[in-house]
Structure formats: structure tokens, C-alpha cells
């Protein structure tokens, strides 16, 4: 018997032997038995059944007027895409390429601490700030990257004060972040950062031996991890808030099999979250890649074990968040918009974040800056000393890149069941696979994201009430 109902746009895939997973563009999801799925798509499912009610509540089908449901879905869709409204708000600035570390996975062409040839000039800094404020976003976050920006702290101060001055007239919601290995920070610097509301983001790769292997200081007589630990304490004492400093970890080949220790180290040092991040292998020479890199499947295996361990920690009463899972869960479980430059659709490159190199060159993303080191300027938008904001951020080049980075219409993504939670990374596609569109069946970012979303979906499907409660606590 054929029932009268309208099927609304949805995506699907086999979830396991017995069930399908269905999702729609606004991120609703539903598991359905194979036989029910067949009935559903063949209009054989009784609209009075509980299952149909469930389907209708997720707006995957309706017995009401389609126009009414379209209105509701449109509102949700608009909310999901509301990150696009403000345009670029994250502005990464590189005051210098100088650095006192020699991280094994570093791809920035770092300069020795004494080599000033890649320091930003005041003229360039002023033009960068001017360019930033020409953007329409009511929110401006200036993030200092490097090299290590603390090596040229005077330039950091100059940019902060120039931005604050501009903001007296422009009245945006202005914030700063400095990304530093912490080792060169003095109490005076920290007091300055606190006064100017500049958050501190650092890197911590795990326990002492691992951290020092991944991120050795150039001066071999110094103990990176020891200085790090001392300075984390110093920063927190001055700030009076344990959350004033956040940390990022990068997984090198040496980190594999050690996620438990890494997580324990984060907890020991008073952090309440971690972002289990895979290495971005772009730009390494082949021999070098083999030394620090690993197959993506290894990372996925480690990520799952790490996530399970973090869930256990939470079950034992300690609040501790895995950042990537939290981001994805927010997309899966809530209607809210989540901007994440590396994983959104359209991609965040240029329209959510941009990076300004020490010489004033503007790139859509950090990897674009790395490509330029190899004389490939595909992702360079221009230079603040030569081009206007309009030329750079409303130019043909950026339009072209963004047009090719909506995963709603990329091959492989267009009908992927995980598309509503995923995104595109044209710079990564270009650098690893040779074009901005990329090839999904062999794309490591895709393989990783798919595996992790699936794993989270499995957890949600298992429905352990404690785990679900923990997930919700992460996305509040």
C-alpha cells in the first residue's frame, strides 16, 4: 500500500549490517532498520507509526504542507550557516619568523633568534592593522603566530596598541591571542598581555621526553619541558585564572601509542581539555616525512583509544574535554553554528581567517604561506603594502577558491551522509592532492573525519547514558 507523505532532502549510508544512518542538511540524524528504510523510500511506511513520527520530527519527511516545513528547515539552515554573516574575524599575524625552538615537524621557515631579516617593520604592521579594520566583521581576533612572536615582543606590543587605537573609532569586539612556546615569557610580558586581554595559546606534546623530542629548543643546554612547566605556573599566578592559557598538541610518529600518557600530562599540568591533532604532512621532503609522519589509520586508532580514555576520566569524575569530538558533537547534537576554519563549508580560508606574513603578504591560510616558501603563490591574496582590502578579500582569486570549497557540491561529499558535520579544506587538497577540489576516496582528511564522526555516531547509537551526559557537558 502506498502512503501519502512527502520525503524531504536527506542523505544516507549503511551504518552497519542491519541499519542505515540518515542525516539531513541541518544536521538531524536517525538510525533506521534496513527493512524500514526500504518501506520508507517506497512510501510503504505508515505515517501513523512511531517511526514515521520520529522521521517527521527530524524533518526528513512530512505529511504537512511542504512549504511550512521548508520555512522551518530554512531557518535552521540559516542558523547553521550564520558563521558566514560576519566575514573574516580571525587575523593571524606573523611579527617575525625568528624562533628559539626547532620542532621536528616545523614547516615555517624559521630563522635563528639572532637573524632579523624576517622581522616585520612598523610600516607593514600599521598597514596590516589598517587592513584588518577595513573588514566588515564586528568581531576581530588578532592571533600572533611565528616563528615565536615572543621573540619580537616589541612588535607584538606595537600591533596590539595600534589595533586598540584604531578600535577607539571602529568599536569592534577586539581580542588578541599569542601563540608561543612560553619559554621566553617574563612576568612583565605576562602582565602586559593580561592588561591588554591577550590570551595565551601554547603547545604541549606530552610528558617530558616526548615534548622535548618533538619540540627541542635550539639551545640544547635548556630543558624545554621544565621551562614550560615553570612558566605555565608563572602565567597562571599572574593571571589568577587557570584557563588563561590553553595548549595544543601535535601527534608525531613518536606520540603514537602514548595518548594516555599525553592526556595524563595535560591533566597533571592543570589543563581541562586537549585537541588530539594529527600532523599536517604537507611540505616535508619525502625522507623527512617518513621520519615524523605516519599512516592516517594509525592516527585514527590512537584517536579512538584516546577518546575512550578521556570518556573514562570523565566517568571517574574529572571534567576533561577532547576538542575535536566536542566540535563535531556540537554539529551533530545542536542546531548552532560552529565556525572552524579548517573544517567548514564553505571553507574558512580567507572568509573566516587569513594570515599576514612578516613582509605584509596576505594568505588565505597558514599552509598557503608554507606553499609560498616553495615559490607557489596560489593562495596569496596580495600584500598590505600594495593592495587594498577589496582587491585582496573580494578578488577573483578568493571567489574562485571559495566556489570550489562548498562540500555540499564537491564530488564524494555531495551525497556523503556526514556532509552536514564536515567541511572542505582547499589548501590542504591543493598541497597534498594537487588541486583545490581534491580526490575524496584517497583524501586523508576525509578518511580521518569520516572515521571519527562514525565513531561518535556509534557512541551515540550505543546510548550509554553516562557517555551521552559527558558529551553534552562538552558542548555546553
Amino acid at each position, binding site marked *: 500500500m502506498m502512503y501519502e507523505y*512527502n*520525503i*524531504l*532532502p*536527506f*542523505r*544516507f*549510508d*549503511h551504518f552497519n549490517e542491519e541499519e542505515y544512518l540518515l542525516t539531513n*542538511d541541518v544536521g538531524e540524524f536517525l538510525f533506521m532498520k534496513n527493512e524500514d528504510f526500504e518501506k520508507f*523510500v517506497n512510501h510503504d511506511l505508515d505515517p501513523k507509526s512511531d517511526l514515521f513520527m520520529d522521521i517527521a520530527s527530524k524533518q526528513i519527511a512530512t505529511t504537512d504542507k*511542504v512549504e511550512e516545513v*521548508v*520555512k522551518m*528547515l*530554512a*531557518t535552521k*539552515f*540559516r542558523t547553521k*550557516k550564520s558563521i558566514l554573516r560576519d566575514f573574516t574575524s580571525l587575523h593571524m599575524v606573523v611579527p617575525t619568523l625568528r624562533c628559539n625552538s626547532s620542532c621536528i615537524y616545523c614547516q615555517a621557515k624559521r630563522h635563528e633568534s639572532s637573524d632579523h631579516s624576517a622581522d616585520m617593520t612598523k610600516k607593514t604592521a600599521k598597514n596590516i592593522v589598517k587592513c584588518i579594520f577595513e573588514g566588515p566583521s564586528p568581531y576581530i581576533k588578532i592571533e600572533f603566530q611565528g616563528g615565536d612572536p615572543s621573540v619580537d615582543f616589541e612588535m607584538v606590543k606595537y600591533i596590539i596598541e595600534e589595533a586598540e587605537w584604531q578600535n577607539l573609532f571602529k568599536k569592534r569586539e577586539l581580542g588578541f591571542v599569542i601563540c608561543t612556546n612560553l619559554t621566553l615569557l617574563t612576568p612583565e610580558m605576562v602582565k602586559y598581555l593580561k592588561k591588554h586581554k591577550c590570551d595565551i595559546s601554547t603547545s604541549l606534546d606530552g610528558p617530558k621526553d616526548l615534548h622535548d623530542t618533538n619540540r627541542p629548543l635550539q639551545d640544547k643546554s635548556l630543558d624545554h619541558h621544565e621551562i614550560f612547566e615553570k612558566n605555565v605556573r608563572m602565567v597562571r599566578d599572574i593571571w589568577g585564572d587557570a584557563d588563561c592559557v590553553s595548549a595544543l598538541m601535535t601527534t608525531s610518529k613518536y606520540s603514537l601509542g602514548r595518548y594516555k600518557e599525553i592526556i595524563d600530562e595535560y591533566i597533571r599540568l592543570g589543563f581541562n581539555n586537549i585537541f588530539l591533532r594529527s600532523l599536517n604532512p604537507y611540505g616535508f621532503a619525502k625522507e623527512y616525512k617518513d621520519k615524523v609522519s605516519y599512516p592516517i589509520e594509525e592516527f585514527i586508532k590512537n584517536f579512538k583509544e584516546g577518546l575512550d580514555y578521556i570518556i573514562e576520566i570523565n566517568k571517574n569524575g574529572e571534567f576533561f574535554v577532547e576538542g575535536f569530538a566536542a566540535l563535531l558533537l556540537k554539529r551533530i547534537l545542536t542546531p548552532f553554528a560552529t565556525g572552524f576554519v579548517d573544517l567548514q563549508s564553505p571553507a574558512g580560508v580567507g572568509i573566516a581567517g587569513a594570515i599576514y606574513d612578516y613582509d605584509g603578504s596576505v594568505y588565505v591560510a597558514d599552509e598557503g604561506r608554507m606553499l609560498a616558501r616553495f615559490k607557489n603563490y596560489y593562495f596569496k591574496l596580495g600584500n598590505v603594502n600594495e593592495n587594498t582590502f577589496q582587491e585582496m578579500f573580494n578578488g577573483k582569486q578568493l571567489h574562485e577558491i571559495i566556489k570550489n570549497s562548498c562540500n555540499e557540491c564537491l*564530488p*564524494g561529499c555531495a*551525497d556523503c551522509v556526514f556532509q552536514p558535520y564536515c567541511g572542505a579544506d582547499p589548501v590542504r587538497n591543493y598541497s597534498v592532492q594537487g588541486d583545490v577540489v581534491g*580526490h*575524496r*576516496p*584517497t583524501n586523508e582528511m576525509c578518511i580521518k573525519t569520516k572515521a571519527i564522526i562514525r565513531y561518535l555516531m556509534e557512541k551515540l547509537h550505543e546510548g550509554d547514558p553516562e557517555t551521552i551526559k559527558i558529551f553534552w557537558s562538552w558542548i555546553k
Partner: protein
Amino acid sequence: MKDFKIPVTEVGNGGFQVSVDLNIYSVDAVTATCYKYTDKFYVHQQTADEKTMNIILEAKDSNATVSSETVKQFCNDLIDQQVRVLVNRDFGHIRDLIVEEAFKPVNK
């Protein structure tokens, strides 16, 4: 492969050919299915006649042999892909309505 007969034939070099009935499957569905297999296979599509398309998949790894599971999975994937095409054909326009409605405020 022995347990798998019509319309699949082995073509040597670790490859196999599937003849797809275009009365059942659209070319879009066939192409989308083939795309999924381009990680491990070189894929060639060719229309045999109005009603048939031949797909030849040859393993990129010259040492690999094609298992019957892969072939069966290919056939199942064809069905999934065809369902996607049908759902999209019948209800895809609603997606356009949603996007249009969503961006109405900024298009005024």
C-alpha cells in the same frame, strides 16, 4: 569470483567488468559508484549499447586480486547510488527551496 556470475566477468590483471543495465541505473548513479572505487582501481566506463554500460575496474596494485566481496559490494553500491539519484530527483528541488528561503533576508 567463481561464485559470482552474470553480469560480472574477470578481465585479467586483477580486473573485472560489470555490465550495468541502464534501464535500472542512471549514468549519474553508475559514475558516482565508480568514483568511490578510484582509490584502489583504475576505472573505465563504456556504453556497450543503448541499454548497457560496461565498467572495467583494474586494481592499481598489480599484485592484488579482486575478491567476490568487492564485486558484490560494487553491485550493492550501485543500488545505493541509484536510490540517492531517485530521492534527489523527486525531492531535491525542496533543497533548493530551503536554500532560497534561508538566504531571503540577505537577497532582499
